[in-house]
């Protein structure tokens, strides 16, 4: 690899936090408080169902960030990428929050009857749910959720700890081994993420089906993971760490990845919409009909504009991707849009009658949505921040680190 003396001696600059990170503690306290307040007080006359709806949304949002970063780690390993080493530790730590996510999924499993209609089917859906019983049944659901988190925890913690081990012993063979392992890991990742999409989201409308749905969620995961990763990198640099290691070249690449996945998400979303719209088969169309009736039409439009048109036009040029300020806006924007996307996937009511008649109420945004996102997000941040504080912020002795530091976009 060409080197023009751009190599930065990262050992001359700060690359570690102090042992504690105060923001982690604050986030943990706020998170617990918000969740507890939401669950106990149920503001605005909410019931448990409303709380669970909001909780599911917040949880999936955070989970997708974590899964997106896990994808980032795996894909960088499998292709032996050089450029990304300086930000890979951050991604490893974000993905490493999987044990916390496993803990936080418990409310969803416990209160699953509040969320998933197939557990308590209406007369209309009974015969279909009966057909799907071999898959959609209580026991298998719990087994599957357990399996997902077993896989994700294993992968994220495994890759993180191997990387940390390399920090200690500098063994280049670890890189080779991780590269070999990353390929089958990606298969596991793909299968679990797809079925998790079915279980957590598609099963909210047990009569509906779409083969592309797993890919749809994956696109959102990767997008939000990259966005969050860019934000964390900025935060780390804002705290005076890695200020020279992570350059605008790396931000540029992260920006390109976000841009690519904005387009990829659009491609997947359009494919699903187009095919269902065009074929117009009642059992499929119903799902979209709900989402373009009443006020939900505005959410659809907001997604089209916000999740595609606006970022596409604003960030197609290389300049906004190379400036930290504009990339910050881009990252925050895609995270917001991903949240809206999840809201759009999970929240619309299953029964469209009122909506179609035009009498369906507005968009069911609730104070609990905010409380839950603060709660789950706070706990997540507490985990990530404290994990970042415990270890070096870069894989210090990764053999590709030199290439990453010298990396330059042409």
């Amino acid at each position, binding site marked *: 690899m060409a080197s023009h003396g751009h190599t930065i001696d990262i050992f001359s600059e700060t690359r570690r936090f102090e042992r504690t990170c105060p923001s982690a503690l604050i986030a943990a306290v706020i998170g617990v408080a918000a969740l507890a307040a939401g669950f106990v007080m149920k503001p605005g006359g909410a019931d448990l169902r409303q709380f669970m709806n909001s909780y599911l949304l917040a949880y999936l949002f955070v989970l997708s960030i974590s899964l997106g970063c896990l994808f980032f780690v795996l894909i960088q390993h499998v292709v032996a990428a050089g450029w990304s080493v300086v930000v890979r530790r951050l991604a490893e730590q974000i993905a490493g929050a999987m044990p916390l996510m496993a803990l936080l999924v418990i409310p969803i499993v416990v209160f699953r009857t509040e969320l998933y209609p197939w557990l308590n089917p209406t007369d209309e859906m009974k*015969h279909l749910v009966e057909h*799907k019983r071999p898959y959609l049944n209580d026991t298998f659901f719990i087994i599957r959720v357990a399996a997902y988190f077993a896989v994700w925890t294993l992968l994220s913690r495994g890759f993180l700890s191997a990387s940390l081990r390399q920090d200690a012993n500098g063994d280049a063979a670890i*890189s080779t081994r991780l590269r070999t392992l990353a390929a089958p890991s990606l298969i596991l990742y793909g299968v679990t993420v797809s079925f998790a999409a079915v279980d957590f989201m598609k099963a909210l409308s047990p009569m509906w089906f779409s083969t592309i749905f797993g890919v749809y969620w994956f696109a959102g995961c990767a997008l939000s993971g990259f966005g969050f990763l860019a934000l964390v990198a900025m935060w780390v640099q804002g705290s005076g760490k890695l200020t020279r290691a992570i350059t605008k070249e790396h931000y540029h690449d992260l920006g390109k990845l976000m841009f690519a996945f904005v387009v990829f998400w659009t491609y997947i979303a359009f494919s699903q919409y187009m095919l269902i719209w065009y074929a117009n088969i009642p059992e499929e169309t119903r799902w979209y009909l709900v989402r373009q009736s009443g006020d939900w039409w505005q959410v659809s439009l907001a997604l089209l504009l916000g999740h595609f048109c606006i970022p596409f036009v604003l960030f197609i040029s290389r300049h906004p991707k190379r400036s930290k300020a504009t990339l910050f806006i881009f990252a925050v924007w895609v995270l917001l849009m991903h949240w809206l996307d999840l809201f759009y996937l999970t929240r619309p009511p299953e029964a469209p009658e009122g909506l179609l008649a035009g009498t369906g109420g507005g968009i069911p945004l609730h104070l609990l949505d905010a409380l839950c996102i603060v709660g789950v997000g706070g706990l997540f941040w507490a985990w990530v921040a404290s994990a970042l504080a415990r270890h070096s912020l870069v894989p210090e002795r990764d053999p590709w680190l030199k290439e990453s530091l010298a990396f330059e*976009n*042409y």
Partner: protein
Amino acid sequence: MASIVHDRDNTIETPGRRAPLVTGGHDLHGVTEVVCRVAESRSAPGAWYLTMGVSAALLAALGAMIGYLFFEGVGVWGLNNPVGWGFDITNFVFWVGIGHAGTLISAILYLFRQKWRTGINRFAEAMTIFAVMCAGLFPGIHIGRVWLAFYLFPLPNQMAMWPNFRSPLLWDVFAVGTYFTVSLLFWYMGLIPDLATLRDRAKTKLSAFLYGLFSMGWTGSARHWHRYERAYLILAALSTPLVLSVHSVVSFDFATSVLPGWHTTIFPPYFVAGAIFSGFAMVVMLAIPCRALFGLKDLITLRHLDNMNKVILATGLMVGYAYTTEFFVAWYSGSAWELFAFKARAMGPWWWSYWIMFSCNVFVPQIFWFRWARTSIPVMLVVSVLVNVGMWFERFVIIVTSLSTDFLPSAWDTYWPTWVEAWTMAGSFGLFFFMFGLFCKFLPMVAISEVKAVLPHDAHAGGAGGHGH
């Protein structure tokens, strides 16, 4: 300067040190020599003449079959209700799919800064163009009255008629047409500096004139390179969504319908993955004889083949994911027709074609988990052929099983191709290999300037194949 050609294993990469992309210790001139001597030599390997002979014969057969078809009408094919698409559209989708690897290598790998693409991008792109030519042939002739093919284009005419833009078949015209045009531009643009190389080395007046004419007076000016590289990058960035759109649109031909087995939302990405899968297999299939016959083993190294085999494995897994998802969702949907359609595929009258497809596309590439298989020429030759067979059958399975057993049992019927269809298909291979043979002999098969840019010669290496954007 060109060193002895030999297979050197450069597939193992020590972490921290990139393995060499060019073996044999070639310098700039060495690369020029290796590539140019094919075009400059007065003769060609015997196998080349053999290939050209066979493919010219097949090409003649293609001409005869098409002439016969025009004269007699589409009745000479085995199509009938309910199977209105058979070999024609199967071959169309197959060839379009083959084309995709070229764009993937030239554009997507470029965006991903995969420098190893420089060894193979040129002839992968050529393969794209010839494959798309073969592909364009089939929808063109399957309409029966070819002289009315201009109906497909929005041309002002005396009927005041315009195409129905809401039809997926029309999207095809735009997608495939754009794809062909842009691929051609991309390929030609990459050729310009290399044609200039051939021009500057030309020994005869004719070759100096022809290569000179098409290299348009290229002098390697830094100012020219600057715009050239920017244009190349943007063309790559344009080709990437384009190549995705092409096979997505082809998949729309099926998926916008309501036919069980056709209407499924995963079709667009699944078709794209399958296209890249089969296209890479075709590149491997072509690369193996080419590098051996024309002495290109130093430029198209085992590492290139290894990487391509990894892509075949990855895309094969994606295709397998799609097959499985289709089956799962067919059951999950609870729709009797969906479920029946997939049962009929696996266990109906065409069960054998389904299982050829499944084993060739999903099971066979699994051997590429092993490094010895990825670097063994015989293994990868067999796998790449099988993958192409499997992917051809994939299209056949999708088209024929779904059409032959649709909603109405009383309308079910079978399909069997006639000899005309069989020879037309063989003839399309003739067309492909004939064009490809011409390309191999008379044009630089490897992107000379791009390979030079990734040679580890000095600090200023980089550029076209190098740093991406």
